[in-house]
């Protein structure tokens, strides 16, 4: 099995289990409140890391390049309450323009 299909299979299978576990396995019981809180905070923790790694990550090095222009434009657009999709398009377009000029 190729790496891509391994990722597709494992992520798909385990996600199905995550979604259905409450309804199927632990009938009626609830998770402890601190566990529920920690699980909910996984979102911001991992998303913030994904922002950082995709913005300045290189191969074992911090790389500051045209991507940062796109990220800066995204921050401004989000602060102006733009919806997610236009934010992403603006970020890609501004980076592309800077590359074209540079």
């Amino acid at each position, binding site marked *: 099995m190729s790496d*891509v*299909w391994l*990722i*597709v299979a494992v*992520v*798909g299978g*385990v*996600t199905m289990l*995550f*979604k*259905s*576990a*409450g*309804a*199927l396995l*632990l*009938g*009626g019981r609830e*998770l402890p409140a*601190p566990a*529920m*809180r*920690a*699980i909910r905070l*996984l*979102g*911001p*923790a*991992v*998303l*913030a*890391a*994904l*922002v*950082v*790694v*995709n*913005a*300045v990550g*290189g191969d*074992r090095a*911090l790389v500051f390049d*045209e*991507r940062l*222009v*796109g*990220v800066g434009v*995204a*921050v401004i657009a*989000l602060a102006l309450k733009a*919806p*997610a*999709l236009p*934010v*992403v398009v603006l*970020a*890609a377009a*501004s*980076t592309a323009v800077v*590359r074209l000029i540079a």
Partner: protein
Amino acid sequence: MERPEVRTGTRLALPFALAVGAFGVSFGVLARAAGIGPLAATVMSGTTFAGSSQFAAVGTIEAGGAVASAIAAALLLNARYLAMGFTVAPALGGSRLRRFVTTQLMVDESWAIAHLGEGRYDRHRLIGAGFLLYVAWVAGTLIGSLGADLVGDPEAFGLDAAFPALFLALMWPQLKAREPLVVAIGGGAIALALIPWTPPGVPIVAAAAACLVGLRRR
């Protein structure tokens, strides 16, 4: 038969479905940029059906991360479905298979639409909203990944900058309260500190430790 509630769910999900479909297209395009073909991308959308985690897997591959890191990053983001699954469980009925299928239609938007308030959920709304969003997401992915050939060199179009912008946009609405904001800053700082020292992908997984703030007593 409470069919009207299914239709209510579908109607409430319509504006989200347009956005989800468009995001599906962008997932297809970005997946191709990271070397994932139309079939694999579409199967992933049909089985995982959780946008941010799919982008996380693709983003980790794009950043040069290992298979294990890509899987871990995606699953850490999807762990919230464990918590969400517990909240809707009391509202579900029927056979085990029926309950299983219903929970698979749960994504952030359909979960929110199914919420009637005070922790009560309506499974028909969940089905009506979830099914429409599912079709939009899978169809969007297929269209995007097939159309990705038209894009050509991904970097010339700034698609590498689309990744951080996308994760920023997904995270933004979650930062209104103080605790998630602190956790996000912590997660970002962990990632930044580890990038020069660890293989790509590891900083993303390690940053999850910031969520442990939620465990402390209050």
